[in-house]
């Protein structure tokens, strides 16, 4: 039974293979067209992705260029201009602060001398 089955299976497979090899020209062309149509859709999808990525990249570059071109950084103004005497200390550096503290000390010292 097993041999009969194997022989039958082999015969059927051979026949089916033969029918595939001798497929008519029209059907082969139709299959080729179908394949081309499917692959074309894949190519179109990939191209659309690239177009979108390129468009985004271009917009991003233009925006960055515009920001650098039109943005003017604020110029540093001399310290103290437009500032009240009370706030003067807050904008000065540590050296200037030390100078004012020394001046206060000298003033106090001189006042003490006169007192003694």
């Amino acid at each position: 039974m097993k041999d009969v089955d194997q022989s039958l299976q082999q015969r059927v497979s051979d026949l089916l293979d033969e029918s595939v090899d001798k497929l008519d020209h029209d059907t082969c062309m139709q299959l080729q067209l179908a394949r081309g149509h499917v692959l074309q859709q894949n190519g179109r999808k990939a191209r659309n992705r690239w177009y979108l990525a390129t468009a985004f990249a271009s917009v991003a570059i233009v925006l960055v260029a515009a920001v650098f071109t039109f943005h003017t950084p604020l110029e540093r103004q001399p310290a103290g201009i437009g500032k009240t005497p009370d706030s003067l200390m807050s904008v000065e550096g540590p050296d200037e602060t030390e100078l004012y503290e020394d001046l206060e000390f000298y003033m106090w010292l001189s006042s003490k001398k006169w007192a003694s």
Partner: protein
Amino acid sequence: MTGTGKLLYRIAEQEEGQLELSNFFKKIEKRAFRMAEIETRNRDDALEIVQEAMLRLMQKYQHRPSEEWKPLFYRILQNCIMDFHRRTTRHKSFFVWGGKEGEPKIEDIAMDENPRMDPAGECQRGLTMKQLMQSLATLSLRQRQAFLLRIWEGFDVETTANIMRCSKGSVKTHLSRAMQQLRSTLEGFV
């Protein structure tokens, strides 16, 4: 790798993938067509099913390893064939009182003979091929699937079960019954 280099590499990779997919389809399309035609007994329906299966594989699974494409493709093909049978069975049930439910058998579809189908015409031993097609038509859908996938395509039991979405035991049962039927109908021709 610079940005431009990466871009060029991606493009080359995609084109290579496209070529590999194209070669795969070229290798498999005729056999898939024959399988679909055995089921539908209609050349145009078979072509449509094959194209649909190619499209679905490309859309969902082209990024899978290429060695997986063949079983995936046949699974999709069988799904498309099942959809076709469901559509035609539903159509018939609409017009026929008390239409059959459950698994559609090829005997129901065979009632709609398609004069354009002439698979025997391409073969030298026309009588035997014709008899084979008639014999295959007497099998149920599942028996035919099991036979074509196991015997003709050479898939192992496990892969066939995955393609048919059934157990390995069911594959063996369907195949056994298919062989029994083919033995009785092809007796004297082999």
